[in-house]
């Protein structure tokens, strides 16, 4: 018999983290005020810990605790996401009055653009600053000889 406990925990953990990224972004972008959704997440998170305490088997107990704890973290993450939007590190939703205010504020860094939506540079390639530092190093070594 295969031990399926771990597989269930893996699914709970993965979906917990997934929702913590995708769901939090969506909730923050569509809530005019993030306090009500944060409160709901906290209540569900605590309720799931209580479910976990009284669950009859390990799988149900573990899954509810894992999902509960990620939801509790998501409540905090809503505030962090709000900060990212203000800094322009996450795209603002102009249809959300709270985000519209960030976009309209003086000296605002908020943007509707998703700056993360691009390909990273090639990590194996030499950067210009590193190349320059290397050439400088070699020259000083030659001088010493």
């Amino acid at each position, binding site marked *: 018999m295969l031990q399926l406990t*771990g597989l269930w925990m893996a699914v709970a*953990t993965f979906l917990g983290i997934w929702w913590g990224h995708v769901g939090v972004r969506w909730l923050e972008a569509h809530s005019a005020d993030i306090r009500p959704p944060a409160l709901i997440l906290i209540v569900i998170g605590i309720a799931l810990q209580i479910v976990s305490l009284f*669950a009859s088997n*390990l799988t149900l107990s573990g899954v509810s*605790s894992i999902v509960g704890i990620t939801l509790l973290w998501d409540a905090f993450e809503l505030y962090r996401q709000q900060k990212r939007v203000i800094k322009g590190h996450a795209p603002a939703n102009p249809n959300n009055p709270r985000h519209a205010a960030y976009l309209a504020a003086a000296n605002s860094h908020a943007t509707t653009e998703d700056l993360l939506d691009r390909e990273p540079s090639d990590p194996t390639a030499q950067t210009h600053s590193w190349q320059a530092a290397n050439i400088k190093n070699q020259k000083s070594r030659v001088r010493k000889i």
Partner: protein
Amino acid sequence: MNIIGLGLGLFSFFIIGFGFVWVIRGEYYLGYLWWPYPLLLGIILIIASLFVSPIWSALLGITGASCIWGATEMKEQAVRADLGWFRRNPRPKPAPPLVEVIKKIHAPHL
């Protein structure tokens, strides 16, 4: 009362927290092209979880899922470093084994 479930919840909390650390360090020192290796490690851990006692199975499952998620985060972390939101390593990073194959696969991102 089932205290073990809460323990597993806390364990997943710390493993996910550790995920933030290794993704940042991994991208800094190795580069995002290494992403298939944590993915593979995660899959191996989850398969291993099928053959051990329930508690070990749970711990391996949680760790494996977190590894898989971390693998999908490495590319985005590289973009964050490119944008200057995180410290960017100016050194050329070591190419992972099978780098040419990896470059052809689109790095997963959710």
